[in-house]
């Protein structure tokens, strides 16, 4: 891997570094990582700054008639390590991805996954029922549903002309 111990704290895009050549295995171009055949050279040691780096998980936000649904990719994050809060229409999801003990101090060959604290905030365009926010965590994806408050839904008001 490039850079040795000065590994950058940015989310690494592995497609920039791996070798590519075509194959009919999947019928599409395939990416091969020369890892196992190089193990005698010794593993790549990730340095501390990488481990404690700050990362921003990817998010999709969908709007329905009655609610917003926020989906965040958090593979390998424990449910207990995620905190969701809402303060004056700003939704904040934060937490920490801890590295498993078995992974620490092992002979690391490749570290592409992100670890450490993450936090993202989103300003919601309408008020939501803060007491009805619901969250589900499944297969590494956090889904937060935020029902819109009544006053946020479009309604018609009749005004009498005197």
């Amino acid at each position: 891997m490039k850079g040795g111990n000065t590994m950058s704290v940015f989310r690494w895009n592995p497609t920039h570094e791996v070798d590519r050549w075509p194959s009919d295995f999947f019928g599409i171009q395939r990416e091969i990582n020369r890892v196992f055949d190089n193990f005698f050279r010794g593993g790549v040691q990730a340095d501390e700054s990488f481990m404690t780096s700050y990362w921003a998980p990817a998010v999709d936000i969908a709007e329905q008639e009655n609610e917003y649904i926020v989906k965040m990719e958090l593979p390998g994050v424990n449910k207990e390590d995620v905190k969701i809060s809402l303060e004056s229409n700003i939704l904040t999801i934060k937490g920490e991805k801890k590295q498993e003990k078995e992974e620490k101090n092992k002979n690391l060959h490749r570290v592409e996954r992100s670890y450490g604290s993450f936090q993202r905030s989103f300003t919601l365009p309408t008020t939501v029922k803060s007491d009805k926010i619901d969250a589900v965590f499944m297969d590494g994806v956090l889904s937060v549903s935020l029902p819109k408050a009544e006053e946020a839904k479009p309604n018609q008001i009749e005004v009498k002309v005197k």
Partner: protein
Amino acid sequence: MDTNNTGDLIRKPSSALAKRPEPLERPVTPVADIYETADAFVIKLDMPGAVKDSISVLVEPGILAVKGKVEPPHREDGKLVFSEIGSRRYVRSFNLGDGVDGGNIEAKFENGVLGITVPKTESLKAREIKIK
């Protein structure tokens, strides 16, 4: 809608992005950690949202290949107002060197992470040589 500061605001995708037709399933290379224990190589791949039954780990001489499908996001969830994830499927493969036991590879999908254990053959394991 106004985007009034530099944070993550709900905003409409830029017109350039909106015009480009998005392919239904973008192939994505899942990020991986690889480490070595005394007995095996361990690969951990981040595959959030992958459907467990759709994940396959294929081993042929010298190659280990992983693929997996993701449920299309928000099919009935209304319209996407902010999207960084989108529709995708996961594809990645690795070279297997000599000295790994291709017949006893194990895989487990948990919390969006696919863990693959590739055992070493006896010839690769560290051992102590007795002095005669």
